[in-house]
């Protein structure tokens, strides 16, 4: 019989090493898969992980892709810390894009400098609104937020699709299902000339700093850690779990909404049926890869952004399907979870045969 036995003391170093280990094993398994597909594994891995970032444009693209992942990841980590499992960031991202982008479309001939801040606010509100629904269902009816937030994702993406196919379709757009382009006042300023790195990337860095302060220095961050680690202790001192459900879903939703707005007001510049290659879902992996710590999430976001870039390049130069990106992300999550389990538990074979003589 094989069983898992809790380790009495788990190594703190392994908690931080396990993402590194997971990445290494992902590379090995990825190489094997490439070999089976008839590609030279070393060339393929080079194409996937090095080629995308061996020039300055590549690195700037890495930042562009990492921006939404980091912003969403920080928001999700707050919830995960408090055992609030918001799986619907993709939907909240979409609603943020619809709310903020809708404002840009409404004022499509505006030149006001107030348009951009207003879009920020509406984007965050849109995401928070979409996060509020699972929060309400959880706190009032005890409905599992994993299911409700996930299902609402599909509602949001279909709603966006309806808008760009119908009421918000560009009247001058030759019937393509997309909105008008946003006015210049509704586009994020580029912060590095010649690249697509926009203001949102700077915001992402601020979000990391603010998230770190909130989590480790503030009373509310303390409360969510206690609620997550020891619900009974939280009840004992009067930290209300329901408040934490509301707080984390609203915050996570708002950040996802903001990330969605940044996508449509940044690289995309208009509303389309598809505005995200699954950033909201990938951010879940980012959050865990970063050990639910904002600074870790910054690195996690960069690594996962690389899988997007590598996947695109692999399509172009190696002729591999786009599914390679999802495959790599999945393998990475698998190894990460496996490493985490083995950090906390050891595997024992046989029921009682093994002895614990060694310390």
């Amino acid at each position, binding site marked *: 019989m094989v069983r898992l036995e809790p380790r*009495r*003391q788990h190594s703190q170093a392994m908690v931080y090493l396990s993402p590194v280990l997971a990445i290494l094993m992902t590379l090995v398994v990825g190489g094997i898969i490439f070999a089976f597909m008839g590609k030279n594994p070393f060339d393929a891995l080079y194409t996937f992980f090095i080629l995308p970032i061996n020039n300055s444009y590549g690195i700037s693209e890495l930042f562009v892709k990492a921006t939404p992942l980091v912003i969403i990841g920080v928001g999700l980590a707050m919830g995960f810390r408090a055992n609030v499992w918001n799986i619907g960031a993709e939907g909240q991202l979409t609603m943020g894009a619809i709310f903020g982008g809708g404002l840009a479309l409404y004022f499509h001939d505006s030149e006001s400098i107030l348009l951009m801040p207003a879009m920020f606010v509406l984007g965050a509100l849109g995401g928070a609104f979409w996060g509020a629904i699972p929060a309400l269902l959880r706190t009032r009816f005890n409905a599992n937020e994993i299911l409700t937030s996930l299902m609402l994702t599909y509602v949001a993406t279909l709603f966006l699709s309806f808008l760009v196919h119908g009421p918000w379709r560009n009247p001058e757009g030759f019937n393509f299902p997309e909105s008008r382009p946003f006015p210049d006042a509704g586009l994020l300023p580029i912060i590095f000339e010649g690249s697509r790195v926009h203001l949102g990337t700077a915001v992402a860095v601020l979000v990391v700093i603010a998230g770190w302060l909130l989590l480790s*220095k*503030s*009373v*509310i961050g*303390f409360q969510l*850690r*206690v609620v997550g*680690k*020891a619900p*009974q*202790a939280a*009840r*004992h*001192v*009067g930290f*209300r779990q329901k408040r934490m459900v509301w707080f984390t879903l609203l915050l996570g939703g708002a950040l996802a909404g903001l990330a969605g707005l940044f996508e449509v007001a940044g690289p995309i510049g208009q509303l389309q049926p598809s505005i995200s290659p699954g950033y909201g879902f990938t951010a879940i992996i980012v959050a865990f890869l970063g050990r639910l710590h904002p600074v870790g999430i910054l690195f996690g976001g960069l690594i996962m952004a690389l899988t997007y870039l590598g996947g695109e390049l692999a399509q172009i130069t190696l002729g591999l399907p786009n599914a390679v990106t999802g495959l790599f992300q999945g393998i990475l999550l698998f190894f990460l979870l496996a490493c985490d389990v083995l950090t906390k538990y050891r595997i024992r074979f046989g029921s*009682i045969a093994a*002895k*614990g*003589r*060694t*310390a």
Partner: protein
Amino acid sequence: MKGAGPAQLEVRGVTKAFPGCLANDDISFRIEPGEIHALLGENGAGKSTLVKIIYGVLQADEGELIWEGKPVTIHSPHDAREMGIGLVFQHFSLFETMTVLENIALAMNDVRDMDALRKQVLEVEKTYGLPLDPDRHVYTLSVGERQRIEIVRCLLQNPKLLILDEPTSVLTPQEVEKLFETLRRLADEGCAILYISHKLHEVKALCQKATVLRGGKVVAGCDPREETAKSMAEMMIGQKLTAPDRGEARTFGDVRLAVADLSLASDEQFGTDLKGINLEVRGGEIMGVAGVAGNGQNELFRALAGETEQEAAPDSIKIDGTSVAHFGPRRRRRLGATFVPEERNGHGAVPDMSLSENGFLTAFRRMALAAKGLIREVPTKSFADNIIKTFDVRTTGSGAEAGSLSGGNLQKFIVGREILQDPGVLVISQPTWGVDAGAASAIHQALLDLAAKGTAVLVISQDLDEIFAICDSVVVMAEGKMSKPRPMADVSIEEIGLLMGGLHDLEGNATPANDTQVEGGRVGQA
């Protein structure tokens, strides 16, 4: 019988190591047939590990077990039962919604005929004086009756060695005496009994031999009948024992904690509803709440601490005259009440947070450890350092995780955290549960000192010795009801025992001595 033939069980040089700790170090002793043998030791002395080795749950690293003169290897509890070893656990593993008979059948290796089993059960019950209706559902039974199921289960297998692990922690003194009668009858028939306890007067009343463990080693063997409880306690802890200093005769101030006609439905499925609880604790007074576990003490604690979802009736709970029934825990604490729950890990403290953070947990308002929504690092750390220093918490420092502390040290930290907040009211549940004797006496002294400064202290405890040692007055809970408070000086342990059994009609009637149940009830004369 003794000294002749082979021992029923002989333990020779048993050693068992866990990562980072030598739980059993070269332990040897023997139990003769018909002998009631006590295994004494504090928590962490290695008693449970040894029992698990004897019962086949764990394997010894070194040493051997000799059963009726032959070396044996016991691979599993199944093996142990086959050989004739029975174990009555401290915590019962019973299915609440099934009947007594069904629960017994589940634990037997091979049951084909329920009617035959019923006959066997009734016969065992009759022989050993363990009345129990086989068709009652477990959730309707008292804790003492539940324990009887476990004992009947063991007896059905005709054990030659019966092991009881802290069997009396959930029993009233009268139930304890009944249990002892059963055990003595079993011993007379030749069954060896290994009795694990830290209640020394019980060991003295019941056992003929004792083996004392400390730090995984056998440190003494003795005849409990020739020792005093104090001398055995000193063998267990390895140092002289000092009784808590109660100070001068205390005077009591105004009522600081008042509970009036508090009724509250339990929020747990098989919990106990509180029914019309009344009590008043004055400044400087330590009041004990005695009772068998599961008679509403947890519900009372949660109602007082403000943890319950449903609100008590207005004015049913007052702290220093302010009605707090509709307040959450934080507002009650702001009024000067502090609370220590029974469970340390996960309830009183967060195991994988540092001591600093755990100090912050309950004290951040009263000790002003937060400002503008942010944690003030320096005062937070120095508050934790202060607790560690004042209450002699053995740890590597305020950065250590709470879960890394031993039970006694963590309890000292938690109690210290609440006491240093200078509370007007302290409600503490099982203050020394699972705590070593040194830490226990430090905690008792701290509670006495706190009361001397004018705090009203309510101690919820199953340990009558503890209540007799530190309390000024006592109330007893049974089935969610509470007896009238009685000054400690004019109440006897028998009376408390009767109240624990739920005999509220005897209240005020101070002469229950003609009750037959009390005849043998001088069990716990501390």
